[in-house]
């Protein structure tokens, strides 16, 4: 094969070496530099702690006794014989399910109502979103006062001749109270996401549906819901993951009680590690939580082909 020549006929192959910083390499370097801060952050604050937690879960670690002993899978075996764990999983499931269903339904309902073109609608949008930016602890403390036996909520009920419960101390109402407080705190975020999604649905589709004779309810079910399905998937993942990580609200409102009725997994983990100084077992519970979150997120992600219309 003849060597490559320039249009003038001179041979360039042997005389010029390809520079190291080619355009391709420069582009690649720029890409790496852009993602580097995120990669460094994830490594320091996620990956290394995750590995450490797994390492700790293989040990018995009592800070007060300064004991750090390798125990292998003992902590994982202890999970199976932990008498409180079933109740903790139950409380966690009830909290997550209740929160996800209530939060997403209310957020969607509010978004539909607030997507109407009415005078002053921006005020209502701001009103419903404002709890999201309020301090979580401040919000929860205010609600803990409102939900006391002689608190604000019962005072309102009394005006109507009703006697309210001791919401946070009654085992039948404690969990629903915590869920409602959390829903009101965060519903604005999902509402805004749904609102943006609703505004992205072309108006012509509704007009076509009106001409096609589709009722408003069926328009919502057959057009709106499928078209905002990407946002439904996103919000469901965010809400489920968030619900499994709830801690501050439980710590402020009920401290896991009454009994263990509101002791969710993260609060139980906190009790084991920081109240009973069983850091090894606490780490094991963290790994369990991590696996649950990972599996649920993976399952939801796999379900996107059924949920999200453009994935079909």
């Amino acid at each position, binding site marked *: 094969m003849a060597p490559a020549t320039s249009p003038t006929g001179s041979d360039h192959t042997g005389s010029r070496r390809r520079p190291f910083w080619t355009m391709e390499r420069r582009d690649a370097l720029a890409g790496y530099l852009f993602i580097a801060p995120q990669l460094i952050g994830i490594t320091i604050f996620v990956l290394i702690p995750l590995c450490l937690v797994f390492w700790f879960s293989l040990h018995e670690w009592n800070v007060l006794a300064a004991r750090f002993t390798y125990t292998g899978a003992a902590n994982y075996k202890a999970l199976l014989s932990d008498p409180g764990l079933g109740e903790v999983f139950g409380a966690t499931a009830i909290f997550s399910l209740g929160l996800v269903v209530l939060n997403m339904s209310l957020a969607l309902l509010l978004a539909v109502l607030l997507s109407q073109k009415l005078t002053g609608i921006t005020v209502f949008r701001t009103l419903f979103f404002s709890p999201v930016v309020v301090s979580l602890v401040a919000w929860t403390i205010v609600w803990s006062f409102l939900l006391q036996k002689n608190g604000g909520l019962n005072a309102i009920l009394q005006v109507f001749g009703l006697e309210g419960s001791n919401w946070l101390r009654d085992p039948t109402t404690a969990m629903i109270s915590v869920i409602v407080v959390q829903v009101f705190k965060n519903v604005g975020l999902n509402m805004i996401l749904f609102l943006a999604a609703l505004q992205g649905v*072309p108006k*012509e*589709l509704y*007009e*076509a549906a*009106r*001409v*096609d*004779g*589709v*009722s408003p309810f*069926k328009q919502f079910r*057959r*057009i709106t819901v*499928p*078209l905002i*399905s990407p946002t439904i998937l996103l919000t469901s993942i965010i809400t489920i993951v968030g619900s499994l990580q709830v801690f501050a609200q439980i710590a402020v409102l009920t401290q896991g009680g009454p009994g263990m009725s509101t002791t969710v997994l993260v609060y139980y983990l906190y009790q084991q590690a920081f109240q009973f100084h069983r850091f090894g077992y606490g780490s094991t519970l963290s790994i369990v939580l991590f696996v649950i979150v990972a599996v649920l997120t993976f399952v939801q992600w796999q379900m996107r082909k059924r949920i999200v*219309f*453009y994935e*079909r």
Partner: protein
Amino acid sequence: MAPVKLANVRKSFGAVEIIQGVDVDIVDGEFLVLVGPSGCGKSTLLRMIAGLESISSGEIAIGDRVVNDLEPKFRDIAMVFQNYALYPHMTVERNMGFSLEHRGHSKSEIAERVQWAAQILDLAKLLDRYPRQLSGGQRQRVAMGRAIVRNPQVFLFDEPLSNLDAKLRVVMRAEIKSLHQRLGVTTVYVTHDQVEAMTMADRIVVMNGGKVEQIGTPLELYDRPANRFVAGFIGSPAMNFLPGTITRAGFEAGGVTLPLPGPIAERDGQDAVYGIRPEHLALDGEGLEAEVLLVEPMGSETQVTLRLAGQQMIAVFRERISARPGETIRLRPDVAAAHLFDAASGARLN
């Protein structure tokens, strides 16, 4: 099929009246085109017929029913939207059958009607696809399929070809026209493209500023525009206009005298506008002098931009022109095809 009657239809948004008393009788099976510049109210009028916009006053009747207060689904109309408005999460088949599902048709009947429409529009192989997997022309055909499966009394088209490229537009124009000839359904078609209007319509309604300027067949509008607006809007390239004065010697403008169409005795001294279409200017060694500004050879014809009597004009010649910019040519207007409009009102004088 049904006739559509619009009687003194008006529409206001606050103090602004955007449809100012429209009267149109659309006969059964007619292909009527609403044409006009952007913002003239043609799409609003179509949406009022569809029931997607309320009317402020007047009467809209489809067949023998006044439909002013009827929801779109009770008007027995089908509409094709500018952006097709196909449901992106449904296949072509579901898109076409969706309206039938909500009107109580059985599954077998829906399948049969969808197959029938798919055969007509050559969509049979695309029934399992989603809109995002289709080309613009295919989406357009699906939108039409969705309309025809219903077998409605009236088809409404809202600028359905404006998103297609020029070549596809010509193809789809012919498809819509042949579909109308095959089905014979009364059709109201909105466009801002006067070529589309001319080639498709049985009759054209030219709208401007919320009012009807003229209603007529394409050639009526072309040959005898009722006013200067219609004359300028219908025809491509547009009609040339020359402002001047009617005298006994002819039409005087910019130091030249043009021959007048028809008797002028009672109009002597009246300010007017002389209108002549580009193809009605012919080369003539004895004609009026014009300076060539630009020559655009199209192959089948040559378009020449020139200055005549101080006004820029366009002339279209079937023959090849060798003139270059800056040169002078001589032209003779075809008096029989010339138009005279009142300078103030724009109304036709001849």
